[in-house]
């Protein structure tokens, strides 16, 4: 039995779908942030696997580079997300997004 | 001097068109407290276009069938959109009428308008440009631009200086007209995309007949234009905006609404729908005729039931515009009538009547609304039943009111007669049921006479014993209309020689397409 691209794609699809499930069901901002991280990891699995299986020359590692930039993005997003959580706390003292409803959701 | 005269002659239409905008700018840069100066500029910059347009009338060459005083400049060459102006026997009288009515409205306005005058006069001048431009434009995009430009100032005129229900009336007017114009926009675009070479020029498109034989597409394009024009006219059942707008608008606004804005619709039918989309017009000639008749009879019946003088005049407009629509329907009637030269002549007669009626109605209804304004300024109500015996109090007013009432009901010898007579005569020869229009004429006569009786005859009432007769401004604004109504009545030929070639040309263009069938 061989592990092929399909395996990786299905695994990443599963991870992505779980992330979406989390996005739709969770109400806590930090938890939502974690779900986004799950989705981003699904993307990275995809990119690395595609790079490996579809690019004959291993030195052209577009997918891996792409994935590295996605990690950079995840770091920046986490940073800003955290800052926003603190800002919301200071203003409202609550963190569940359905509890903050000054504006219609 | 020679050069200047020639230059004036070459740019006559642009001058008439843009002078009011210059005036609006002058007013915008005048301080709002300086009312005298604002009024002065308004008078000057409505008089100038009037003077220019009188010159236009004199310099106009009636027998020529083509457009005159044409000015063409490229505007958006990549799409073939041009700044193209021109007038013929159909549009020239309407341009003059617009200039005249705007001027008399401005002369009349100081007695009625006392607040926010700076905005008022600026908008009024802007409105004039929109109206004049609509009649002059020979490029569809330009036409559409002016069509919409005339909409915005009127919205504010009704909404700010109107009666108690003004906001409702203003928004209703705006939205109704906007619905029509966007439908027209789509039709214009359809025409453009079927033209070869691509053009928005009206005369070029009429020459090309891009939708000839295109069946359903021609019908759709026709319906797009129809919606726009029918709402403006207004044809039953699109008329519901009109009573609101007319009743709520300030007097001068009503004058322009009834005198000019309604004509934009009928002008569109004669200028665009008939020659450009003859097959589409032909499909709908009977509904147009029937709706015209409904307009005449329904308008008159409803007018008879009114106690509010302004509403009465408003509904009488619906009735009178029905005659125009009847004439247009006659011109649009189907193929057989195009092959027979006699019937074709009746088409021309009907169209002559329709166009004559546009002018006559503009003069007389404009005057009627001014007269309503005159009495309203004194009594602060318009309930006919609360007046009575006014004649003894206001002799000149009573005489003028009766004079215009006679004109409205179509007394031979006054302007109103010829339009209705020719339109019904022409239409009757083509389809006999047009004769039902006579019912409308009778009802109209009845309610106008009844109104005169209720307001002016009988015992003078205590409540209005101290009403002064008309003041100077009211005299200046009303007498020109009275004189012209009389002149057009006793010497209709003066107007008809101008109109006739344009109508012949329209029928000829339709015949070229439909004559074979």
């Amino acid at each position, binding site marked *: 039995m061989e592990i092929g691209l399909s395996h990786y794609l299905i695994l990443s699809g599963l991870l992505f779908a779980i992330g979406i499930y989390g996005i739709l069901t969770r109400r806590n901002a930090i938890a939502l942030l974690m779900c986004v991280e799950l989705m*981003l990891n699904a*993307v990275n699995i995809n990119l690395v696997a595609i790079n490996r299986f*579809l690019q004959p020359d291993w030195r052209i590692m577009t997918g891996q580079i*792409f994935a590295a930039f996605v990690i950079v*993005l995840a770091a920046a997003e986490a940073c800003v997300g955290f800052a926003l959580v603190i800002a919301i706390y200071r203003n409202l003292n609550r963190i569940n997004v359905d509890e903050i409803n000054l*504006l219609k959701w | 001097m020679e050069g200047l005269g020639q230059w004036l002659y070459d740019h006559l239409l642009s001058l008439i068109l843009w002078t009011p905008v210059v005036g609006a700018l002058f007013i915008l840069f005048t301080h709002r407290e300086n009312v005298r100066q604002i009024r002065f500029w308004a008078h000057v910059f409505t008089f100038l276009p009037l003077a220019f347009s009188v010159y236009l009338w004199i310099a106009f060459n009636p027998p020529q069938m083509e457009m005159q005083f044409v000015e063409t400049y490229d505007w958006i060459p990549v799409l073939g959109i041009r700044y193209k102006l021109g007038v013929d026997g159909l549009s020239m009288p309407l341009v003059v009428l617009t200039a005249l009515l705007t001027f008399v409205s401005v002369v009349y306005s100081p007695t009625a308008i006392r607040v*926010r005058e700076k905005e008022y006069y600026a908008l009024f001048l802007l409105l004039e440009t929109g109206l004049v431009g609509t009649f002059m434009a020979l490029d569809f995009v330009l036409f559409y631009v002016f069509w919409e430009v005339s909409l915005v100032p009127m919205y504010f005129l009704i909404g700010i200086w109107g009666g108690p229900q003004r906001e409702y009336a203003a928004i209703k007017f*705006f939205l109704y007209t906007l619905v029509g114009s966007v439908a027209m926009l789509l039709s214009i675009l359809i025409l453009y995309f079927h033209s070869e070479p*691509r053009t928005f020029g009206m005369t070029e498109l009429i020459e090309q007949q891009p939708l000839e034989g295109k069946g359903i597409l021609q019908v759709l394009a026709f319906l797009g234009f129809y919606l726009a024009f029918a709402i403006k006219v207004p044809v039953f059942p699109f008329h519901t905006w009109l009573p609101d707008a007319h009743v709520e608008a300030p007097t001068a606004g009503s004058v322009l609404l009834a005198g000019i804005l309604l004509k934009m619709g009928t002008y569109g039918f004669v200028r665009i729908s008939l020659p450009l989309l003859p097959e589409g017009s032909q499909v709908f000639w009977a509904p147009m005729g029937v709706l015209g008749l409904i307009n005449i009879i329904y308008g008159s019946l409803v007018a008879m039931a009114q106690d509010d003088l302004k509403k009465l005049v408003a509904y009488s407009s619906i009735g009178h515009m029905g005659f125009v629509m009847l004439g247009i329907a006659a011109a649009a009637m189907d193929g057989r009538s195009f092959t027979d030269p006699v019937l074709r002549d009746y088409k021309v007669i009907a169209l002559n009547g329709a166009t004559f009626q546009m002018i006559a109605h503009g003069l007389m209804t404009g005057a009627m609304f001014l007269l309503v304004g005159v009495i309203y300024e004194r009594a602060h109500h318009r309930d006919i039943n609360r007046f009575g015996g006014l004649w003894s109090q206001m002799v000149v007013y009573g005489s003028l009111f009766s004079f215009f009432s006679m004109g409205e009901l179509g007394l031979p010898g006054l302007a109103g007669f010829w339009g209705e007579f020719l339109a019904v005569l022409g239409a009757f020869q083509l389809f006999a049921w047009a004769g039902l229009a006579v019912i409308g004429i009778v009802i109209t006569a009845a309610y106008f006479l009844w109104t005169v009786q209720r307001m002016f005859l009988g015992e003078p009432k205590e409540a209005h014993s101290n009403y002064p007769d008309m003041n100077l401004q009211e005299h200046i604004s009303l007498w020109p209309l009275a004189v012209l109504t009389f002149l057009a009545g006793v010497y209709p030929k003066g107007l008809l020689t101008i109109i006739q070639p344009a109508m012949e040309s329209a029928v000829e263009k339709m015949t070229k397409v439909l004559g074979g069938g």
Partner: protein
Amino acid sequence: MTFKDLFILLLGPELWLTFLGFFLFTLDLIFPRAPKKVFGLLTLLAFVGGLVLVAAQVLSPDLADEVRQAAQENRLGYWLVTTFSLDGLATFSKGAIFIGAILIALVTVDYVEKNLREGIPEFYGLMVFSVLALCFMVSSVELITLFLAIEFASISSYILAAYLRGDPKSSEAAMKYFLVGATTTAAGLYGMSLIYAGTGTTYLYEMTAQFMPQLGETGVAFSPPLPVLIGLLMMLATLGFKVAMVPFHGWCPDAYEGAPTPITAFLSVASKIAGMATLMRVFASGFGPLSAGWVPILAFLSLVTMTFGNLAALWQTNVKRLMAYSSISQVGYLLIGVAAFSPSDFQTLLGMSTFQGSEMALPGIFYFLLGYAFANMGAFAVIIWVENWEGATDRESFEGLAQRSPVAAALLTLSFLSLIGIPPLAGFFGKFFLFGAALSRGLGWLAIAGVVNSVISAFYYLEVVRRMYFFPPRRPERVSTSLMVSSAAVLGVVGAFAIGILTEPAYQWAMAAFFDVVFAPNISFR
């Protein structure tokens, strides 16, 4: 030309923005007591300078040749120009973005003085950097650069939206904005990975080159392979989020209402221009030959977006929120142009058939964007004008404005008339071109939906106009403002007028941009 020259020529406006942005940060460190207005003026300088540099790029006649030359001689230069393109699409959008940014900077100074207590230098610095990000966005022709730019722009917007520290609405709006943004980003990235799987490259024009042969002589559009189509649609989540397209619009009303008003203006003008330009870059340029796959979807989304935006706007009582829904509906109109794209546009540009000026679809979008930017900026400048005085943006604050400040009322009315589409303002011609494009491409139903929506939109715009003109003023005193805000409003409206009347040059410029949408790679790659 050396690499350095190329670098400066190609990235001139971006380098200038980076320099000034960091300069703003350091200036605050060195002179903590510097008057805050200085930062505002420096920001204005940054944007004006950017516009000048873009103009220099557009006007220098043989820049393209020089760039091509240098890129072929110099390896680093080569990699520079293959990720960062200086084509008509990029320069046009940058020009429009800078124009919008200048007007925004003008209205920001007063607003900041009135409403912000701290972090003012950073506020301006972040504004400069968001514009930088937008410039990158419209120039990237490679997916990695593109997504970084999009994220940069989004993240700085989240921060700017959260800037009203005392106002819980602001942080809440930013939080919602952030969560929707992060989710759509993840989806978009997943889509990009699928596109990468389907094409093996991240360069947009390599994708075009792959699909072109299939388009062939016939010019009939074909559907993309399934992974690419799905990837494209997932990418649409990110781009749709940026331009606030239904169904990715959820953040828009909240963010517009909660954010500081200049940032609202920024989101609705600069951000939207960049988003639309990128959308066109990806769909029309990268995947143009595949239009059979995405055109029906975009046509449908266009219908939904404009209808939803307009219907929802009818119920709004806060003018900022109303502008949010109105901007959603404007995106719907813009999408008509994208949906009216056809591969024949592609072919005309490749010289396979002759170009007709009447091919209005893509130039129409650019023209519409420009007109929309001016009119919207005029409107927002007046909203800030009123907000600075009244402290609120609900409809009641606008009552009787015509008598308290006739100029403000007139300017707002004209902006709204342009947004409704009344000629001769720019908004009319924008719609005219887009509806025309739809009609000429057999999307008559979309054109009809467009005009029906225009009429609906008149309701809510006129509701505000009604309150300004027909209502008595709530308070007698006049509403005055600084020269900067009023000149921004005047510039916005004059701009809307000017490109309405001078349609030809604006349309020509838009057409030049259109030519280069398809010719994305500005150097020969082979």
